[in-house]
């Protein structure tokens, strides 16, 4: 795989289809995340879909292109950032007296995008965490070159 750097990835057909679909998949993931409090879905499913769109890119075009878009260090950074965001939302609840309080007093109008207080914010934080984290796992697993039975 590494001997032929020019021909990284799969065939032309796969690459073309990927180029067409990968943006749609990403967009679908973002939609699922933002509408998590109204329709089925939510931060977790959306985050996995976003991670899958990058993994899709990696499988079709080889790892170099995908890592140019989102490197492993960046993924790790985004993951920690998402985690800290989520924890901050939890700790902000202390303002109202309780850990994890839904501190928006006005919950907004039902069925609208901007409603339900902290729930959409949590969804976004989880999406960052899940998407970046799963991408990091996958990148690490693909990078590992396996020599069978070294130093036995």
């Amino acid at each position, binding site marked *: 795989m590494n001997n032929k750097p020019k021909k990284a990835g799969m065939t032309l057909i796969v690459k073309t289809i990927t180029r067409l679909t990968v943006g749609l998949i990403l967009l679908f993931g973002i939609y699922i995340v933002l509408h998590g409090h109204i329709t089925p879905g939510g931060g977790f499913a959306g985050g996995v879909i976003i991670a899958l769109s990058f993994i899709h890119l990696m499988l079709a075009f080889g790892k170099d292109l995908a890592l140019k878009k989102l490197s492993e260090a960046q993924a790790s950074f985004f993951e*920690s950032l998402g985690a*800290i965001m989520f924890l901050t939302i939890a700790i902000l*609840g*202390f303002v109202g007296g309780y*850990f994890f309080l839904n501190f928006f007093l006005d919950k907004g109008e039902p069925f609208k995008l901007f409603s339900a207080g902290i729930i959409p914010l949590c969804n976004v934080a989880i999406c960052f965490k899940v998407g970046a984290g799963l991408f990091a796992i996958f990148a690490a697993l693909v990078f590992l070159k396996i020599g069978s039975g070294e130093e036995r």
Partner: protein
Amino acid sequence: MIHNPSPLFVAIPLGAAFLVSLLGKRVKNFSDSLSNIATFSLLLLSLFSISLVSKHGMLVYKVGGWVPPIGICMVLDGLTSFMLVTVNSIAFLVTIYSISYMERYTAKWKFYTLFLLMLAGMNGVIVTGDMFNLFVFLEIAAISSYALVAFGTEHEELEASFKYMVMGLLASSFILLGIALLYSFTSTLNMADMSRFLVKTGAIQIVPFVTVLFLMGFGLKAALVPFHWWLPDAHPSAPAPVSAMLSGVLIKVLGIYALMRVLFNVLGISPPASTLLMILGIISMVLGGFLAIGQEDIKRMLAYSSISQIGYIFLAIGIGTPLAILGGLFHLINHAVFKSLLFLNSGAIEYATGTRNLRKMGGLGLRMPVTGYSSLTGSLSISGVPPLSGFWSKLIIIIAAIQAGHFILASVAVLISILTLAYYLKLSV
């Protein structure tokens, strides 16, 4: 928040772990200092919680302001603050120790992140008052410990970690199945509410089955004897600070404490269950003791000795009188202290001499006087030599056994104590 600091026990280590993973690679010495600050503040907080509990009695914290059966609650009572002090004091000492010890491994910040996550998981298990929340935090602590066992990434570590992980996941599935059954029957997840419902509906078929499921699950996590065989591989393979943490507190929090909470606070302990606990405890005690004698690797010997001492605690829980529970808890804190001391010493010995074989390291007291004498103290205490604390806790357990009429069990406990002295003398002489 000053009235009830329960959420901070989880929030501080979690926040520290996230910050270490974000900045630990970029800023020099950041991970060392932040981890030590975090564990030290947790220690102070846990000491503070004792005074709170003694002043106010049981404290309940409603997460998100929801009333308990609807939301999750945290409970701070005597047992909780006792366990918190044990865990956090050991964790503080271990973090100090690992500042220089972990220099021998690469990627130190990953170690600290995983360590703090494990601590957060354990504290979460201790303070929670909700069944499913217990499971989630149990998984955090368990998953980080699987990764920590494999931290050296050599043959033995990976093998031990895989075995440990398979057994741990099996245990988790049993526990989750038990929770599912309980939920379907009681339709609530809050422990207090669940137990009220179970008492109201009276004796039923499902409680024994759930008890067995939990006994298998938590027994696997605590390495009771039929489920013990992962422990002597996993504990010695980990880096010394992690071994101290695993053997000293992790098996007690995930196994014994969680089982006690579930059995006493939710299901209610029945006579067959307590007999079963006593039998398993005695078998662990005897088998762990005899297997420890044959070992030449110092850490492996300590691991088998952990199984044996866990047996004492289970015996005490099985007897179930107040005196026995007191003795069991006293032995739990004693074992946490001296077993982590001995594991840390074994790390120091390996650091200095490069071997873990007991035969090759004679004359320890001359070459490393501090380590030698502290090991001697720990060994004497664990084998129950009179003025030291191990003696008193074992004495209480044995007296409780005699009071409850279990003379055979009491005599077996005395004999195993002498056996313990025999194999620990190998270490100190």
